[in-house]
């Protein structure tokens, strides 16, 4: 009997969806708008993240080692740095490499090259460039650099200086901007999503409100709440599925068109590539949101009229 009931509920939901053509069309249309907002939020989140990532990648601190530091000690030190939870990566630049880079940069300046020559030895220090996972974590990395971990096997300090004190203000400000942008992005996302869900919810409420008398008659015939509600929920799920498919279908040409622009504007992310790369995930988000919003709205809207 359960299967028969489910079959009847689904068939009835399906029928009323087609027979209420115009109403269904309007509901689907409103739902498409909502799902577009949700997809837009996902895309702008990706753009924001990519931009913030680019900014984060530009931030690092350099640790300069004393000229007498042994390479062995420096590499051991690099190992301790690399296992720190705050550290994303570190890059070691040996003394000779530092000299090469210096010469290359000042290749046209004869006087500097001459001065180097006269010194006879490499005056440059080896350095380690450290990138943190998050800009706010540089402070704790800097503190670590002042601890005993910077001692060599023989007990002398191998770290000469770091550029953290000079960059500190800039890094801290950046950290604040990044975290504020994150928070703002989240708040905006939440507001947009809630607003658009409310619009869909109200539309479905109106649609079901117009079936108020019908629900009352079903009640008077002794139909159970579940049996009355079922077809409406099926209808809500159909709004969600159809709107979801339409939204995904529209996103393809739209992202294809704006993709190249976003690549220029927002450092290095093409929305179309993003869309294709995350297609199944987006499918799940868009269709899932549609089905959930549609079914829950219908469920709640019918409940109001079931009191008879």
């Amino acid at each position, binding site marked *: *009997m359960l299967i*028969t009931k489910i079959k*009847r509920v689904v068939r*009835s939901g399906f*029928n*009323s969806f087609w*027979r*209420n053509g115009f109403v269904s069309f309007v509901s689907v249309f409103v739902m498409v708008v909502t799902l577009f907002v949700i997809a837009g939020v996902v895309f702008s989140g990706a753009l924001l993240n990519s931009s913030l990532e680019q900014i984060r990648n530009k931030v690092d601190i350099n640790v300069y080692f004393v000229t007498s530091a042994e390479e062995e000690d420096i590499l051991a030190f690099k190992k301790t740095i690399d296992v720190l939870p705050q550290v994303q990566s570190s890059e070691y630049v040996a003394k000779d490499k530092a000299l090469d880079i210096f010469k290359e940069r000042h290749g046209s300046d004869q006087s500097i090259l001459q001065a180097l020559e006269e010194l006879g030895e490499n005056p440059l220090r080896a350095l380690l460039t450290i990138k943190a996972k998050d800009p706010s974590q540089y402070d704790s990395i800097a503190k670590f650099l002042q601890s005993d971990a910077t001692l060599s096997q023989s007990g002398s300090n191998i770290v000469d200086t770091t550029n953290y004190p000079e960059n500190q203000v800039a890094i801290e400000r950046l950290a604040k901007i990044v975290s504020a942008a994150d928070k703002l992005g989240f708040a905006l996302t939440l507001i947009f999503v809630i607003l658009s869900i409310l619009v869909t919810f109200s539309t479905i409420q109106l649609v079901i409100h117009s079936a108020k*008398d*019908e629900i*009352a*008659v*079903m*009640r*008077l*015939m*002794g*139909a*159970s*709440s579940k*049996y009355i509600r079922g077809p409406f929920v099926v209808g809500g799920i159909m709004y969600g599925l159809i709107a979801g498919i339409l939204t995904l279908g529209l996103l393809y040409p739209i992202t294809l068109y704006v993709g190249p622009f976003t690549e220029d504007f927002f450092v290095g992310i093409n929305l179309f590539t993003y869309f294709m790369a995350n297609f199944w995930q987006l499918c799940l988000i868009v269709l899932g949101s549609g089905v959930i919003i549609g079914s829950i709205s219908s469920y709640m809207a019918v409940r109001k009229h079931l009191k*008879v």
Partner: protein
Amino acid sequence: MPMIYFDKVTKIYPDNSVALEEVTFAIEPKEFLTVVGHSGAGKTTLIKMLLAEEKPTKGAVFFESKNIHKLKKKEINMVRRQIGAVFQDFRLLPNKTVFENIAFAMEAAGRTDEEIQSDVPHVLELVDLGNKIWNFPHQLSGGEKQRVAIARAIVNQPDILIADEPTGNLDPINTFDIVQIFKKINELGTTVILTTHNKGVVDSVGGRVITMENGKIIRDDKSGNYVL
């Protein structure tokens, strides 16, 4: 033992209008009861009480010695499945065909697909609408709609058939036909409660008549005529 018993039922709506006042009466099985009265006399409220659509402010309504308004939702559903209801405005489901409208009542009562397939055409033959089975309500005339509503009300072979002003929107010929159908249903053993303010209907039924005025029963005649 009466099938239905109204025990000093009073209904006062939130706007303080008194729809029923200390109404007491009993209905026996297989009776054909006509309730007459002007608009606003309380006939429709009486019907709503019986269907548990409204709760009495005071008093109680018993159906087969159960207090209808003390029942749980599920039990109310069971009671409603034993009552067929027909309304002045037909109240068909607009997006369902004639077949589906009647099938819905059977589905709600938990009948099988086989029963639905065999009973729906049969009951439509009874009300002489066999050829309109796939039409939608908006494609039917008033009389046809009311006959669909009656078919829907009787398809589960209810113990009682309630009809609230069933002929209110119909012309005299359709009215006559509908009354004949009700009489037939009553002869087959179903209790019928009919409200009307149509003198012709009361006279052609010829059974027990309760007359209401301002929420009170002012006459209860075993075999009455329209006397308002």
